[in-house]
């Protein structure tokens, strides 16, 4: 039992945050009338419902407690996310092969048991597979290494 660290409390607060955020960003959208609804009508309705539900969830968790949030690790989430972002940055600017190598290395770091030799081999194998599938097989319009192929 944990009141301040329960999954439900934070889940409720997350829903409230989404609802408030949508209300705030949606203020410029006109509401319209019930007959001719403007673009803001349904979003605002949904926001209010979400805030309501979120408050109920959070309140119930505060009163009754709930399952605590399992402790996470910072490494997997950080490295995998950075890996995907870097991939997105490199894919057009440098090509598929550099992007793939970067993603494999970064995510392998996040995986905990990093071995340099293994990662080199697996990234190269993966590059070959990707070239065969996407460039040769599906003839997608992508550069393998920018400026070279």
């Amino acid at each position, binding site marked *: 039992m944990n009141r301040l660290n329960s999954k439900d409390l934070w*889940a409720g607060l997350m829903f409230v945050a989404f609802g408030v955020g949508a209300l705030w960003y949606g203020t410029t959208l006109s509401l319209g009338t019930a007959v001719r609804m403007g673009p803001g009508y349904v979003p605002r309705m949904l926001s209010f419902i979400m805030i309501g539900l979120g408050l109920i969830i959070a309140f119930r968790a505060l009163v009754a407690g709930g399952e605590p949030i399992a402790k996470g690790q910072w490494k997997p989430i950080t490295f995998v996310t950075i890996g995907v972002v870097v991939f997105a940055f490199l894919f057009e600017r440098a090509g*598929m092969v550099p992007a793939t190598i970067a993603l*494999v290395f970064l995510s392998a770091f*996040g*995986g905990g048991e990093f071995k340099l030799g293994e990662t080199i081999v697996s990234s190269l194998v993966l590059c070959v597979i990707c070239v065969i599938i996407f460039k040769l097989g599906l003839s997608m319009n992508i550069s393998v290494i920018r400026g070279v192929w």
Partner: protein
Amino acid sequence: MEVLSNVALGFGVVLTATNLLYCFIGCMVGTLIGVLPGIGPVATIAMLLPLTFKLPPESALIMLAGIYYGAQYGGSTTSILVNLPGEASSVVTALDGYKMAQNGQAGLALSVSALGSFFAGTVGTILIVLFAPALTEMAQKFGPAEYCALMSLGLVAAVVLASGSVIKAIAMVFLGLLIGLVGTDVNTGAQRFTFNIPELSDGIDFAPIAMGLFGIAEIIGNLEQRATGHSVTAAKISNLWPTWADFKTFWKPVLRGTALGSILGVLPGGGPTLGAFSAYTLEKKLSKTPERFGKGAIEGVAAPEAANNAAAQTSFIPMLTLGIPSNAVMALMVGAMIIQGIQPGPEVMTKKPDLFWGMIASMWVGNLMLVIINLPLIGMWVKLLTVPYRYLFPAILVFCCIGAYSLQNSDFHVQQVAVFGVLGYIFLKLGCEGAPFLLGLVLGPQMEEYFRRAMLLSRGDATVFFTRPLSASLFAVTALLLILMALPNLRKKREEAFQEEG
């Protein structure tokens, strides 16, 4: 006979070299991801969605459907041989299937599972053929108010039948609906929640979201638990074919599993997992010797295997006839149709009969293929399991990213995968389910459209939803479901039921 000519049309579409090939590819990929733990059909279909752009719609949907039911086959193989269910729907198969394998009956367990699945798949396909036209006809009488009611019912039922907290799942549905509204408003052209990002003005793409929520977040979760490679010792496979005595023990469970799975598959939120669990529980209750369950009872393999496959087939019914997905995979299938320029709904059957019947016929052909190709390939699938996770997850990541990029050849979608990966991780930590979110997301824009149209037709009178008989009864059922869930007694029962599953 109209039914026969429809079926003939369907087989005409499937039995071409290209479509047979895509059906085969779908089944193989499905089996592969069914075998591998850590990646499910939702992430895979999202990943492969962009690759289906250039295909004709029939081929694309035939392949994607193959992935879905192929995964059910693959999942059971590894459940039985190495006690590693690759899919949630084959968790129960492992209970008795693996015990059977340890008792030297691996071959029997595999063949019962394959034959039961094939039988159930056939029945499921026949059910679609028989009931789809009737449902479609009914759906054509629906006005916007009815559609709105039907979608609410679908979303609520999906939440009630899924495991976990009901109120959180409902909140997730609303979050999905809200995020589904991102983009240009159809009626007024106003930009909603686009933050001046031009890529968002066409609406938010659900494929990168599915990849993030079901692919990336899953990987991060697995890495935290240090999921490493499994040292696998597969049981020896001997005498594959069941004897007459065996047959007598399992034909009834197969029939019951098929029936139960077929019904649960049609219900929103149902699908293979629920079907398999319920069938197992039912067999245990009916059995004269329930103590054998968990120790290698053949009924404990036959019934859930038949049920999960039957449910995989019949869950296509609401999607094909009404355009309403009953689970996350069907939500992606709806998306795949929209990408191909087809609005899912009752018109598909009349306007695109070749697509509709071709897809249904392909399911039967695919099931047949799975039985024939899978038994000889079992050894290969088991070997694949020895590949450590640290080789596997970078490959999944790379395929997700390239898939997301190729949606519109823009790295914006890859960034979107990253964002929803983080969001999915937060959902995971807070115990919020991704499936209701995805359903809400896919149905959001349509539901708003119907809601606004219904209100316009009724001149702003919200009672229209309760005065039209069909819509009123649909809403009544929805309300009843919600009230039932709020009753403390039933809530306890439901928790117990899911406890048993876990």
